[in-house]
């Protein structure tokens, strides 16, 4: 009899999917948008990406060392948080803003609530909102081709026309990662095909958002207007990469649809009625807060009691 034979409860096989592998897939999916942002906005954006990722990972490591907790940076979730935060910063943000944002995201939003799986808000988005409130002017200063410009959504609000093709490709001012719709969609398709994200959240988000804008904005059902609204303001980045964050979205399928609708309606409301032309970040983190309630009302019916169909 072999001496190293192991005993455990069934099942005795495990799938090859792991948390770190999922996070790795998300990083891959974010690469096109990241690389496009760096290509378009230059060295400072590369620096911001590097700083955010490094500080997020180091913050988590230091916190866990101080708390004598098991080190979890190997799961790559801190890398994803750092990357997402960087993609949500304006290209000319300063390195110390990136540091403050990263520390806030990891320490305050994630680790203080118990680390991975326990945070109730998307850390990257919470940090972005924190930075927007703390450094409003710097966070809303978008430089494109060397001059400060209004983002497409701000232009629309002032009644100026926008070039939809430019918006689709990414030749517009905006945060590092939000500008190129096509690069983001490439990553999103990859995540849906590999089964990393559930199409329900982004679909419910986009559909409810478009319906809301069609019904309540002053431009109504104008197609170019709606396309510009979908492609601009980080909606694609938010819908596919941040609203789909597992930890802060519902676990049930019906819950995910409701969550997506909440995000869509709130984004629409902010864009139509608030003083700022954008609103994805706030819409998602407010919806994050609704997740426990949504999960409570969407417990699926079980097999044999109506849930088998």
């Amino acid at each position, binding site marked *: 009899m072999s001496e190293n*034979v192991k005993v*455990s409860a069934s*099942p005795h*096989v495990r799938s090859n999917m792991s*948390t770190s592998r999922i996070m790795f897939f998300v990083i891959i999916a974010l690469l096109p948008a990241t690389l496009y942002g760096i290509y378009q906005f230059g060295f400072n954006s590369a620096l911001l990406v590097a700083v955010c990722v490094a500080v997020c990972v180091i913050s988590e490591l230091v916190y866990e060392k101080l708390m004598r907790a098991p080190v979890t940076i190997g799961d790559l979730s801190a890398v994803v948080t750092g990357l997402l935060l960087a993609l949500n910063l304006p290209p000319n943000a300063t390195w110390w803003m990136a540091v403050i944002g990263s520390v806030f995201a990891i320490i305050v939003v994630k680790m203080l609530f118990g680390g991975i799986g326990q945070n109730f808000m998307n850390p990257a988005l919470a940090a972005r909102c924190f930075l927007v409130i703390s450094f409003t002017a710097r966070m809303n200063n978008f430089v494109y081709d060397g001059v400060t410009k209004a983002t497409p959504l701000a232009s629309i609000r002032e009644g100026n026309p926008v070039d939809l093709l430019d918006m689709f490709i990414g030749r517009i001012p905006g945060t590092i990662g939000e500008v190129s719709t096509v690069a983001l969609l490439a990553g999103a398709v990859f995540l849906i095909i590999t089964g990393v994200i559930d199409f329900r959240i982004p679909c419910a988000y986009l559909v409810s958002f478009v319906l809301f804008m069609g019904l309540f904005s002053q431009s109504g059902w104008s197609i170019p207007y709606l396309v510009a609204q979908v492609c601009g303001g980080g909606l694609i980045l938010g819908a596919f990469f941040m609203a789909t964050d597992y930890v802060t979205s519902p*676990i049930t399928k019906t819950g995910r649809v409701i969550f997506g609708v909440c995000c869509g309606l709130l984004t629409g409301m902010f864009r139509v009625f608030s003083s700022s032309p954008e609103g994805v970040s706030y819409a998602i983190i407010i919806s994050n807060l609704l997740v426990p309630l949504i999960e409570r009302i969407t417990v699926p019916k079980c097999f044999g009691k109506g849930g088998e169909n």
Partner: protein
Amino acid sequence: MPSLTFKGGIHTYEGKDLTKDKKITDLLPISSELVYPLSQHIGAPAVPIVNVGDRVLRGQKIAEANGFVSAHVYSSVSGTVKSIEKRLNVQGKMAESIVIENDEAYEEGLPIPVKPISEMTKEEVIGIIREAGIIGMGGAGFPTHVKLSPKNPGKIHYVIANCAECEPYLTSDYRRMLEEPEKLVAGLKIILCLFEHAKGILAVEDNKPDCIRILKDLCINEPRISVKVLKTKYPQGSERQLIYATCQRAINSSMLPADAGCIVNNVDTIVAVYHAVIEGRPLMERIVTVTGDAIRYPQNYRVYTGTCYADLIEAAGGFKGNPEKIISGGPMMGFALYDTHVPVTKSSSAILAFLKDDVSDSKASACINCGRCVDACPSRLIPSRLADIAEHYDEEKFVALNGMECVECGCCSYICPAKRHLTQEIKMMRQTVLANRRKNK
């Protein structure tokens, strides 16, 4: 027609290629001692009717069923009763067993008296099945005569032969269907005699096209029997999921298949019914797949109950390398063994040996709420939530979230990217709830 199925479930590495082309080989016991646990079934343990020192024959009853929900035990060899004592069983417990010293003469005892099927009443047929000590051989081990005696036999609409064999690596049912399909069909016809309003269904997964073809050919003139093709997916052979896939009827934990007008039996059980009713042969052998990457020559063996697992491994060429995990049964629901000196029972289906153990290789981490367990759960539960509740020992909440509907199939643990031991937590909580219910009765 698309293959029938249910919602949820998982696709695993099948591993059936190792043994699917290996013909069933007869294997006589190697060790001189055979061990027959008194409890190989669900229900009361059988009571020994032999004494130490008695000479017994092959096919002689050595322990008698204790009550209705119980089953007789037969000796599979001729020899002398050496002792009646506690021996290690596959679940890792010491269980009261009869130990017989094999004299290697294999002298046969008298068969169970049988008449031609047309001359027997239903009660007589069920009586023979009971006499033969037949139990569900798919794993659970529920006495078959109890299953075949529902309150209202006239309301049974389907008798389903569970030919899914959805557990990875197992090929014993597959080989049986290829080599003795006529016995399976004949056995099913015997069971159908008991339920005149019932239709017979042979439910086979679509990864066994050869079996589907053979069975369809055999049933071409059997108006009451049809072959249904199931999607290959685990746990397709789980009773509730199988009934749903084949008949679109759903049962929950408070119901028996008979409540939905269904009776489900696995391939080996039905063949055992055939052997008992036609040949008067009690249940004393079964087919066991010996496989895994740590087994030198993977095989399908027909073995006598009571044979030591170590004999089967030896016959299959022994281990190549040091196995890290040895399992009795399939990798999804089987038991890990720490000692291979345990006997083959009526419900043993396989011995697996792996060089690497997935479970000890992976470390459990925090739940990331990804929902994969929710997608995989065939009972449509929220396993991650149930496991949390189980950790906090909240019985009320566990029951409210339908924790008792879990079929312990293992899909959630398999799929979890955080490698949490979801099935284990839920299983333990279920056992606690059941124990408390019994206590409060």
